[in-house]
């Protein structure tokens, strides 16, 4: 039952928001998002730390074609649900000083998207997963289109078509699997797992590519990333946060939940290519990030680099890589939301995101400088921040696959430090100039958000065990299952 509540509560709140006035919308949205977080925490307290699927709900939906409304939460899903329900209130909170026109629609779309995201993370039926997956796209499309910056129609449209193309390939893959399920065809996750594993490695290869392209576009992985920098830059801050903080994880989660168990042989066969693409993406995006002049765009590219490492770690198929991916998915969500919020704060006060025109903000606002530094260090994976735990485990996982790949993937840490620290230096340090001299102090809400995020960065950097423990049994079981399928 609690799973249904988690999925549909945001939707009900979103529908409610449509009927209220624009001015009240913000408060109601925050209240709804916090309530959703409370529900998620309650689910966590009821959660048994083992590999089983809990809070399972299974109704027939379209019975004659074997489609059911089957949802449930295991450790992996639990972490993603927690991340989503933690970030959405934060994201809404970051908009408190921004006055969007038709704010009620804006927040309704964000909550509707939250519903779809939670749905993606708890679906245990291939068709249902696909429906939620697509459903997440419509709200974010309208958020970016209607509240986005210059040229948003063209850019968001590219984004929409790109991701839809990927999705349709995935749909093709899912139908292919569905028709290989035994007996009466079914979209149930276990039936799809069995169907996938009954295929030989060539057929699994088809399935692998059909699904991998969908996930790779969503994350995005080189060379499917061309929609991402423009979309992240043009989207309103909250839209960018939803995209990078949560929506991107749909791709990585999809690989873990669907791709690996369904097509283990396909993954093994193509892992070299897929990991190579991820690693190329890491180096390529990092290099491009270094020469960016726009800070928001720089972070967009850094996100490609980070997510490339996550996907490489997952595709290496070992426990360390997978655990690292789980942690890094959370850390990246927290860090990237923090960074985009910092961009927003700077842009609101100075009307520019150009790194070169800024400087010396630390002299005016040391408090901001400290909070910025903490988020930034989390992002460059300094030990004792959350980013370090994930990256270390991921690099360890990739190392077990191939040492050379790891050497290149490891560049992400070094290059990341280069572009992040350089931009910090240029924005915060040095002489205060005309633009930055009047940098206003942080408001209460801004402080609150940054302090919460900084606390999360430090606490989970020092003591990540509670997070690792939630997912560990499920991750171990998943990896074992995949490895057994590979040995056969």
């Amino acid at each position: 039952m609690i799973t249904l509540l988690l999925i549909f509560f945001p939707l009900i709140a979103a529908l409610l928001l449509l009927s209220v006035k624009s001015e009240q919308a913000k408060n109601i949205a925050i209240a709804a998002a916090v309530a959703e977080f409370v529900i998620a925490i309650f689910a966590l307290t009821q959660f048994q730390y083992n590999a089983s699927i809990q809070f399972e709900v299974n109704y027939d939906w379209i019975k004659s074609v074997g489609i059911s409304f089957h949802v449930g939460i295991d450790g992996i899903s639990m972490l993603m649900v927690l991340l989503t329900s933690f970030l959405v209130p934060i994201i809404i909170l970051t908009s408190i000083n921004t006055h969007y026109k038709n704010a009620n629609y804006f927040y309704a779309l964000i909550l509707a998207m939250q519903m779809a995201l939670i749905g993606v993370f708890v679906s245990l039926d291939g068709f249902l997963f696909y429906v939620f997956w697509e459903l997440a796209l419509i709200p974010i499309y309208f958020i970016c289109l209607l509240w986005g910056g210059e040229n948003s129609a063209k850019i968001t449209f590219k984004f929409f078509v790109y991701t839809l193309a990927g999705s349709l390939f995935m749909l093709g893959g899912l139908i292919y699997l569905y028709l290989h399920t035994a007996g009466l065809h079914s979209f149930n996750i276990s039936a799809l797992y069995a169907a996938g594993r009954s295929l030989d490695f060539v057929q699994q290869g088809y399935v692998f590519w059909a699904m991998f392209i969908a996930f790779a576009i969503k994350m995005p992985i080189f060379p499917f990333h061309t929609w991402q920098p423009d979309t992240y830059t043009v989207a309103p801050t909250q839209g960018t946060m939803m995209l990078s903080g949560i929506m991107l994880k749909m791709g990585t989660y999809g690989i873990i939940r669907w791709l690996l168990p369904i097509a283990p042989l396909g993954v093994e066969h193509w892992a070299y290519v897929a990991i190579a693409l991820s690693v190329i993406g890491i180096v390529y995006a990092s290099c491009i990030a270094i020469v960016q002049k726009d800070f928001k765009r720089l972070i967009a590219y850094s996100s490609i680099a980070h997510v490339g490492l996550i996907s490489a770690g997952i595709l290496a198929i070992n426990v360390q890589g997978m655990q690292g991916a789980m942690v890094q998915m959370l850390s990246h969500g927290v860090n990237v939301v923090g960074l985009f919020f910092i961009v927003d704060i700077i842009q609101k006060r100075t009307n520019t995101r150009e790194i070169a025109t800024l400087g010396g903000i630390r002299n005016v606002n040391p408090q901001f400088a400290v909070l910025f530094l903490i988020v930034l260090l989390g992002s460059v994976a300094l030990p004792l921040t959350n980013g370090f735990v994930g990256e270390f485990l991921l690099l360890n996982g990739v190392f077990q696959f191939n040492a050379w790949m790891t050497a290149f993937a490891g560049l992400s840490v070094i290059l990341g430090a280069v572009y992040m620290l350089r931009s910090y230096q240029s924005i915060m340090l040095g002489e205060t100039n005309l633009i930055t001299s009047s940098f206003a102090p942080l408001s209460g809400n801004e402080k609150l958000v940054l302090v919460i995020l900084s606390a999360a960065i430090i606490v989970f950097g020092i003591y990540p065990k509670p997070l690792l423990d939630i997912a560990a049994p499920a991750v171990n079981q998943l990896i074992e299952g995949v490895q057994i399928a590979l040995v056969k």
Partner: protein
Amino acid sequence: MKALILLSSLGVIALLAEIFSFKKLIYPIVLLGLVLAFILNMFDWDTNQLYFKMMQTDNYAIAFTSLIIVISFLWFIMAEGFFKEESNQSDHFALVLFALVGAVIMVSYTNMAMLFLGIEILSIPMYILAGSNKSDVLSNEAAFKYLIMGAFATGFLLFGITLIYGATGSFDLTEIATVVSTNTAISSIFYVGVLLMLIGMSFKVSAAPFHFWAPDVYQGAPTVITAFMATIVKTAAFAAFLKLFHTTFSSLGETWMHIVWVMAALTLLVGNITAAIQTSTKRMLAYSSVAHAGYMLLALLANNSFSNSAILFYATAYSIASIATFCIVSIVANAKGSDVVDSFNGLAKSNPLLAFVMTIALLSLAGIPPTAGFFAKYYIFTSAFTAGNAGLVLIAIIASLVGVYYYFRIIIAMFFKENTNNQPLEVTINHKLLLIVIAVAIILLGLFPESIISLL
């Protein structure tokens, strides 16, 4: 059958209205009659009556008849303005009702002669109605083109029927099927006959490369008539097409399947790509209607247990979404004086209801969940996959992406562009209700498609 009789009598009553001057009453009488026809039709469910070996009310026929009646009910509400004109009012009613009679015959025939009659009864009123905007040159052109092309196609069809009769000695579908399956050496004119019938039917469903008439006719005809052609005529034609090839010619798959494969691929690509470069929304919807015929051809080609319900569901989803889009296009075009995409600029601000319903209808046409159009596409893809036509599914996927491009042009115009022409839109209460009902139906059918796909 009862529904057929009722519809015919409604047509006659509409004609009598002119003589006995109760013209004001026809509109409610017709709506009531359609409801009654729907109910009578449902009474025939599972009876499977055969009438003189000419028509059969099997569940296939009843399901499609019901669909046609429901869509025409929605269409009558959409077209209320069309029937307000002072002159020719009762003629218009009678013509539409007789066209419906033809459509019902087309979905329940068991004899080639009835197929031909049905097509003619449907087509001749359409030729007249396409030109019902007498002062408009485009409307006249549409009627003329439709007549010439339609007659041409009927010629092919008739020639095909003749050749098949020559080879098998029968017009009856079951008898032909028996001859085909028992006789190993069928005369070669039979195959020619099948091909000619294939061409004739492809004209009627506007499948490439026999689709050239569609855009001009759709654009020139009054918008309500275009909506009628794009929904009811297309549904009936597809039901007839499917019945013929799925039952009678099914065992001859190899003779026609390669051709239909190529036609489906062409229809998908030509329809979608040409639609993408149109500026007139009506013309764009015409090409999109060609493209949708391509998706339905996928199910026809699959020729398996999915085919019937896939086409029924697709026709349902496509028709209700089309009624909504054509309704909104005609409202906007009437107010702004033009149906180019730019007329939709800023509609979300000036009239949120229209923009909202239009968005849902276009998302459904584009096949995006949770709308009915998505499940329809999914089901078609499944049937094609089962039949081993993975390559065609790939083409259909690419074509769908192109489809998204042009449907979203209207969405972007409505939500993103600024309105320059602040002409207020007049939307009647009936239209508002109709649009709300359709929007709800699109979502409900998308979420609970079982009610329809379990019928066949």
